[in-house]
């Protein structure tokens, strides 16, 4: 044990990192306190201003809230690791550490465990603090505490990966500059290359969704690179967690091995040996020539790009010059020897060979991917995908995930799909134009040949597409995807709804399952049509190890269930009745208080078709009001501008609101009625549209035609803001 880890050395390194570790812990802890406190203050202020009620909660998404912890792997891990391994950059410190009575392996492991301990502290203490504060404010702020700890775990793994990558770089190099540069190369270069080259191939072949040669080509599996721009990934455990952990373990093992071999005399040198120095220099040169590789690849794969010989030569020369300068500068800065820097230019031919090799590899992958044209007999089954399931992996749609994991074996369909793919490929090969299929219907198919899976986008003629749809929807396996809903008793399944409380949502879900079992068709059609419904319940469940969600429509066709749903809405929104009625009966009192004011009437009782929305929108009212009443601060042009952009409520419109108010729940016995959800939202500034939001569900007589609201929307609103219709139907 002493040979691989020494507690005293660990304790010593932990002590050395005390200052920097404590600074990051304090900074992150302050942020961890500020976030819940600021949200609570926001709630309090909203409560005072009437924007929130006592019973309402601010709902926070853990991925957004917890993303502050990314500081741990963006700043804390690199700084702590560079400090801990800084002794490798100077001869005196390197000799000192190599002279102490410890094996190199023990030295490395003890230091790395000390770094990891600090990273754990830097991450876990703020998480616990945030947990405590959210627990204190739990009556007013809703957030998944469990997910905060998942985020902490993911961030910790990302930090460890970052740290071990930097330790890896420090082991291979001997100066701070090369530590940093090579760390960057180790952390980012493989991912950048994979992302760039796979996007080059995918964009060159219109049938590809993503490069499926190897799973490591996926963009979302490395926690460090994937979480930039997709923080939601942090709140889930998945392949990104395990891949990053595996990569950390692999990097650790390699670094430990190399650290054992590292010579103390490497301190102060650019790299531990000349071969690695050349490799790093070539990597720098290679990065600068990526655009050249992309241009050449494009010329070789796309027929409709017209190469201009002169501009091509110019690009080539410029690229080579940039590569030479980059390699020269790297060599000069890392070795501080001009002669060596000049000599480094001699490795340019190797760079050209490396570039050439990459182009050959790209072309090989391009051809393999393009020439995938299986026959029907090759295919054992296929499954369906949508593009969304690929690009928003963290928000997997339940039915898409089920579609993806269901094997369809209909021979007729397989024949149709393989023939279509072969035809598509041949057409493309004859023309090599990427957008030649734009006017056709497309389907995302994963072909299965035993354990091998290949996903392609197929472009179909209308006839083929109709045939495909008919064959598909006639399959019982297909129907089952939509009708077999998960058991609510499972702890992984959660039901919620915008308008219902959890108990009500659960009841509706249980009834919905029964309704679908007895009459599945309306439900299957509605889910397939991808239409927005107001009366929905949200399903959250774990399927195939992924967190999946789906909005399940409660359709008017399921009359009793639908009626119950509407009654629940009416019951739950009753508390806002007085306020909403005030907005309707006295609209002129409010209308000049806000920049924007929306009245959205959602009529839910249409049993024949989709839900109908009537959206009446007033804008720039406050600006105009101020400008008109305080003209000295506004130019005539400004006032004119407001006037032109103003969506002003007409007197008739406001009168109509009053009429609606008078009809609310004023339905006599036996009279036909319709259920309406009225949502009123307003903002006083344009950056926060949800400044104010009230919902209210109620009945009015069936005879009242809400479409009368159409006439209150000026023509220019249609043209400028909503295209064809401001009032959506």
């Amino acid at each position, binding site marked *: 044990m*002493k*040979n691989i880890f020494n507690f*005293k*050395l660990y*304790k*010593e390194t932990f*002590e*050395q990192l005390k200052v920097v570790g404590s600074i990051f812990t304090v900074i992150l802890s302050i942020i961890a306190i500020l976030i819940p406190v600021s949200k609570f203050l926001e709630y309090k202020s909203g409560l005072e201003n009437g924007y929130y009620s006592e019973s309402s909660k601010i709902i926070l998404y853990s991925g957004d809230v917890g993303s502050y912890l990314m500081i741990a792997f963006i700043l804390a891990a690199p700084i702590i690791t560079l400090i801990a391994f800084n*002794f490798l950059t*100077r*001869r*005196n*410190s390197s*000799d*000192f550490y*190599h*002279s*102490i*009575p*410890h*094996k*190199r392996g*023990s030295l490395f492991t003890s230091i790395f465990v000390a770094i990891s301990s600090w990273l754990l502290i830097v991450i876990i203490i703020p998480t616990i603090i945030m947990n405590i504060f959210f627990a204190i404010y739990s009556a007013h702020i809703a957030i998944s505490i469990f997910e905060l700890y998942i985020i902490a775990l993911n961030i910790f793994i990302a930090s460890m990966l970052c740290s071990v990558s930097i330790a890896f770089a420090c082991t291979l190099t001997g100066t701070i500059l090369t530590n940093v540069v090579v760390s960057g190369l180790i952390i980012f270069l493989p991912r950048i290359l994979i992302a760039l080259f796979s996007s080059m191939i995918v964009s060159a072949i219109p049938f590809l969704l993503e490069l499926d040669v190897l799973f490591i080509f996926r963009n979302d599996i490395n926690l460090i690179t994937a979480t930039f721009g997709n923080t939601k990934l942090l709140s889930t455990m998945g392949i990104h967690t395990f891949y990053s952990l595996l990569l950390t373990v692999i990097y650790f093992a390699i670094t430990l091995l190399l650290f054992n071999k590292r*010579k*103390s*005399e490497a301190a102060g040198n650019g790299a531990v040996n000349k071969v690695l120095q050349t490799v790093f220099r070539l990597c720098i040169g290679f990065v600068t020539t990526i655009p050249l590789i992309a241009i050449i690849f494009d010329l070789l794969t796309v027929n409709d790009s017209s190469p201009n010989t002169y501009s091509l030569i110019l690009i080539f020369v410029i690229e080579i010059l940039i590569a030479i300068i980059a390699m020269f500068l790297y060599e000069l800065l890392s070795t501080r020897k001009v002669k060596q820097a000049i000599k480094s230019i001699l490795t340019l031919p190797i760079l050209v060979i490396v570039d050439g090799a990459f182009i050959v590899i790209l072309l090989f992958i391009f051809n393999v991917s393009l020439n995938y044209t299986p026959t029907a007999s090759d295919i054992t089954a296929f499954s369906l995908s949508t593009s969304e399931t690929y690009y928003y992996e963290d928000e997997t749609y339940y039915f898409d995930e089920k579609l993806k994991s269901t094997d369809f074996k209909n021979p007729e369909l397989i024949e149709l799909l393989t023939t279509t793919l072969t035809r598509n490929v041949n057409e493309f090969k004859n023309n090599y134009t990427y957008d030649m299929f734009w006017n056709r219907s497309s389907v995302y198919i994963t072909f299965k040949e035993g354990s091998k899976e290949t996903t392609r986008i197929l472009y179909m003629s209308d006839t083929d597409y109709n045939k495909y749809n008919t064959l598909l929807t006639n399959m019982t396996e297909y129907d089952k995807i939509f009708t077999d809903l998960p058991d609510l008793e499972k702890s992984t399944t959660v039901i919620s709804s915008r308008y219902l409380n959890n108990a009500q949502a659960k009841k509706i879900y249980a009834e919905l399952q029964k309704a679908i079992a007895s009459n599945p068709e309306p439900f299957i059609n509605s889910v397939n049509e991808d239409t927005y419904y107001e009366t929905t319940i949200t399903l959250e469940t774990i399927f195939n190890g992924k967190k999946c969600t789906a909005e399940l429509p409660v359709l008017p066709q399921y009359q009793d269930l639908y009626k119950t749903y509407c009654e629940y809405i009416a019951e739950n929104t009753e508390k806002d009745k007085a306020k909403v009625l005030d907005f309707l009966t006295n609209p002129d009192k409010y209308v000049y208080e806000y920049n924007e004011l929306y009245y959205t009437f959602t009529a839910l009782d249409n049993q024949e078709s989709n839900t109908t929305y009537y959206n009446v929108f007033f804008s720039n009212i406050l600006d105009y009001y101020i400008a008109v009443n305080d003209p000295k601060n506004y130019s005539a042009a400004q006032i004119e501008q407001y006037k032109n952009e103003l969506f002003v409520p007409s007197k008739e419109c406001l009168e109509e609101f009053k009429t609606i108010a008078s009809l609310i729940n004023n339905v006599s016995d036996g009279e036909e009625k319709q259920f309406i959800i009225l949502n009123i939202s307003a903002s006083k500034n344009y950056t926060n549209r949800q400044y104010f939001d009230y919902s209210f569900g109620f009945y009015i007589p069936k005879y009242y035609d809400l479409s009368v609201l159409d006439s209150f929307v000026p023509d220019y609103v249609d043209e400028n803001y909503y295209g064809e219709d401001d009032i959506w139907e």
Partner: protein
Amino acid sequence: MITTNELTKTFDGFTAVNNISCNIQKGCVYGMVGSNGAGKSTFLRLITGVYKPDKGSILIDDEPVFENPSIKSKISYVPDELFFLQGSSIKRMSDFYKNVYPRFDSERCKYLTEAFKLSYDKSIATFSKGMKRQAAIILALSCKTDYMFFDETFDGLDPVMRNLVKGLICQDVMERNATAIITSHSLRELEDICDQLALLHKGGLVLENDIQNLKTAQFKVQIAFSNEYDETLFTDIDFSRFRKNGSVSTMIVKGDRDETVSKLNKLKPVLLDVLPLTLEEVFTYEMEALGYNFENVLEA
């Protein structure tokens, strides 16, 4: 005991240590001198286990030193270029050493710090060059190791401190039978403390001997004759550096002193003086014999 056998270390084609074989006995103070770039520091780094030899072997108490914590725990090393933790005091460094060296004696460290009149709690970064070196020596001596290696340690120390350090090293050697290796450019610093001296040149071990032998094995002869003569007169004497100025000649003679005097007396000189050589002269002449001579530069 330290035994090296054909020890070789090269850096980018430059051989810093070349085929050094030597035995350093326990309880001995071993001095190592040599010109700049002779390989003294590299030799110490090799026997400390900092460097791995490219060829040859190092055995300390019959065990290899590289990647051998049990042997390295018996070694304390004061390098030429010192290292202290960022912003650390002697107290902080003492804590570090205590975690690393099993026999580290904090009380001794405190005691020596006071003896050297250094601050125990003040940052070492604020110390002068000599004080930093003193701090490093204090820490090394507090490790109470069996082997202590000092690289150019007396550089930057004032004479009083030098004597104090020498005394402390001698004390450790005598009381604990410790072994010390000290490298220096200055023979004067070594001759009153070392039992053995070695001369390194261009990575190789040129000379290694007891200090007493070194001092007596060679001597300077001043001789004059009434008649004309030249160096051929002394064919049966092992001499070097023959210089004749008028009728008086000087030469460095190797061999038995009495026997040489007897031989020279037989030649009936009008003047014969036999003078002892300082160690510095011994090494200078050895170095000159190896071509390390810059007199011509000064003459030019």
